[in-house]
């Protein structure tokens, strides 16, 4: 217990320091009347005046940014050193993502796939964070982080095949659309129940930490709505108490389906919780790809030395929550337009690239056309592909197929042999 109390003391001290550094903490007037308390739960000064703290006791946590709305660098010392090719690649992936969202969203409307979620407005968070990580870092995504997957090298074709659940879907048609995953790309399969990825990501980070000479970290994406789940708080606490190599990346896009962030929480957003849990914390402009890059790159340095980090990337969800949502019911077109145009992360990065002489209108037209063609071609191909073999339905429930499932499979085989003309077997992959 003595040992533990010591650790708590160190943590509390660093937490206090972190709070001071991060916010311009207006300290209550402390009237010292005899040193510091020795409670195991808090080493704090005594005061003899009642004073409650509230959200106004602290200045809001500032938002770090590198570019202004016109893609101009504000302070040249903060401009990240990313080479031309990588910058153009990041931008191209944004365009690719936009085109894919546009076409797949429409394909859901046409009844070709059952569900889809777009990523508009958060492209900067995806590209900035993905570019700052090592491809070996493990990604736990929520569901709106497709840009990260594209950056890791997953092809449009693979993503479209997943949405169509055909025989080339790496997930074998098991999951609903947009629940991607790729072991090869270090991206853990997406799980629908909100925020469950958070404690799991911390657990995976703990596993990485245990490996000798670990130089990898985990990044876990979640929305500000998910941050209300109990799992999120558990994950913050465990990340801190287990000193895990993890970046907890909150995409605060202003809406959890229809619930605006003003109804989601009180206090200064998600970032304000970080220092309270003992996490290194920063708030960043999520529409500024370069700022996200800088923040994540610095966070990664901390994380790989087992200092967990919380990042709150501020953005705006320009699209509807999903194909099951119509956001015009709860927000104005003017509000959406402001974020879609003036504060668009895609536009900001484009203006930055143009300023550097890396991009122009012609390249833009060409890139959009290519991106569109890639998606259309992938979709046409996906529709022609066969469905996974029916036997896949019974695979992977257990590591070794139990006799009961083997029996069912054999029964089905015999049944299909006898009555094959009644089933559309030609649509399914053969053995």
């Amino acid at each position, binding site marked *: 217990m003595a040992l533990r109390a010591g650790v708590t003391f160190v943590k509390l001290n660093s937490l206090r320091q972190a709070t001071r550094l991060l916010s311009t903490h207006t300290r209550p007037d402390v009237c010292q009347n005899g040193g510091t308390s020795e409670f195991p739960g808090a080493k704090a000064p005594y005061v003899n005046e009642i004073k409650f703290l509230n959200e106004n006791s602290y200045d809001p946590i500032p938002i770090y940014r590198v570019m202004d709305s016109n893609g101009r660098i504000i302070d040249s010392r903060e401009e990240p050193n990313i080479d031309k090719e990588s910058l153009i690649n990041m931008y191209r992936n944004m365009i690719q993502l936009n085109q894919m969202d546009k076409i797949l969203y429409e394909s859901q409307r046409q009844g070709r796939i059952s569900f889809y979620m777009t990523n508009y407005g958060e492209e900067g968070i995806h590209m900035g964070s993905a570019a700052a990580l090592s491809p070996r870092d493990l990604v736990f995504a929520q569901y709106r982080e497709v840009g990260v997957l594209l950056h890791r090298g997953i092809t449009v074709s693979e993503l479209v095949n997943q949405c169509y659940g055909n025989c080339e879907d790496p*997930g074998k048609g*098991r999951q609903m659309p947009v629940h991607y995953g790729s072991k090869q790309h270090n991206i853990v399969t997406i799980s629908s129940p909100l925020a*469950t990825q958070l404690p*799991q990501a*911390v*657990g995976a980070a703990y596993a990485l930490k*245990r490996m000798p000479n670990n130089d990898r970290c985990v990044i876990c994406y979640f929305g500000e709505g998910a941050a209300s789940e109990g799992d999120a708080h558990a994950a913050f606490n465990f990340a801190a108490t287990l000193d895990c190599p993890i970046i907890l990346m909150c995409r605060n896009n202003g809406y959890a389906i229809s619930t605006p962030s003003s109804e989601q929480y009180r206090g200064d957003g998600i970032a304000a919780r970080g220092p309270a849990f003992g996490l290194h914390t920063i708030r960043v402009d999520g529409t500024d790809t370069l700022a996200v890059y800088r923040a994540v790159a610095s966070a990664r340095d901390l994380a790989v030395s087992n200092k967990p980090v919380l990042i709150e990337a501020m953005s705006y969800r320009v699209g509807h929550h999903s194909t099951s949502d119509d956001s015009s019911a709860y927000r104005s077109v003017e509000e959406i337009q402001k974020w879609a145009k003036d504060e668009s992360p895609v536009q900001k990065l484009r203006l930055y690239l143009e300023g550097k002489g890396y991009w122009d209108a012609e390249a833009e037209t060409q890139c959009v056309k290519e991106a569109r063609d890639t998606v259309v071609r992938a979709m046409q191909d996906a529709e022609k592909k066969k469905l996974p073999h029916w036997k896949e339905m019974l695979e992977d429930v257990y590591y070794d197929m139990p006799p009961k499932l083997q029996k069912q499979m054999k029964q089905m085989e015999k049944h299909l042999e006898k009555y094959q003309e009644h089933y559309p077997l030609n649509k399914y992959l053969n053995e």
Partner: protein
Amino acid sequence: MALKSTPVLFGLLTRLSRRTFSTSKALASKPVTVRDALNQALDEEMARDETVFLLGEEVAQYDGAYKVSRGLWKKYGDKRVIDTPITEAGFAGIAVGAAFAGLRPVCEFMTFNFSMQAIDHVINSAAKTFYMSAGAVPVPVVFRGPNGAAAGVAAQHSQCFGAWYSHCPGLKVLMPYSSEDAKGLLKAAIRDPDPVVFLEDEILYGVPFAMSDEALADDFVLPIGKAKVERAGQHVTLVCAGKATDTALQAANQLAGEGIECEVINLRSLRPLDFDTIAQSVAKTHHLVTVEQGWPQSGIGAEICARVMESPAFFELDAPAWRVSGADVPMPYARSLETLALPRPPDVAAAVRAVLANRGECFMHTPCLGEGTVVMWDSLPEWEHTH
């Protein structure tokens, strides 16, 4: 969550362990408590495989709320025996994530009653991820801890999760009875590539069972999905698991004095369920009674009866099969009521007699008449206790 006062539980445990327990192999070599057998299993598997680690509330310095992890923290250190903050959803999620990333976590719930706070991780994540990832991400995690009724800890701390978890594809669910079961099955669970829910029993922790030299050896592993015939008999088949095995064996002893020989099948594994052993036994005895501590509706007994109905074993029955289960109420606190809410040997014996006499339609048991009272009633069909 509310009740984590271990000394209180320990007192109750000591009081309860004074009750008599029958063990089938009284002559075998060495008595070992279930607690020590579990401890041995953990120790041996941690020594064998560096990726195995234990996490949960108070498992490290405090040796676990029920002392199952005694000495392991001293031996393996902070890295492999981790005390966590009190958040079931948190550490169950951590365990699942660590399994995703290649470790073999053993996640202790102080009692399985608290696993409900983390059930999303157990079912939606642990059980389904291998399937949802198309076989790319195995989840070799073990969730273990005491399950079912303890003593004097009432409704929120006395609940059997056998039926809950065995409902779910993707999970394996084990329920050990004796020390041999506990050791062999826990070792199998830790080595298994699939997520395993391992349901122990608080009252059995302190009970010594004879363990053979073979079972004491560090390479002793029991197969998952195989039941054990604890006692052979030709008149009626009793199917049970965990603590209910003790109830069934006591009833079998009692009935033997009346010339009724029961075959007692300790399931050991609820999922996969060893139905072959049950069917073979029914083919011999032509009578079936199931015994469990959980509630009757959609329970393990219900599942066994349904499987009998769907199989040729049905034609072997000379009388309808019967379920003896926990009463269909939340567990009461008062000791007299608590005793009546769980199946007792006389309840099992009465059910066996009724089934053998094929007069199941009039067999009723009421928890209102005091201990040891089993009545045969022709009326009051609204009572639903032992069927």
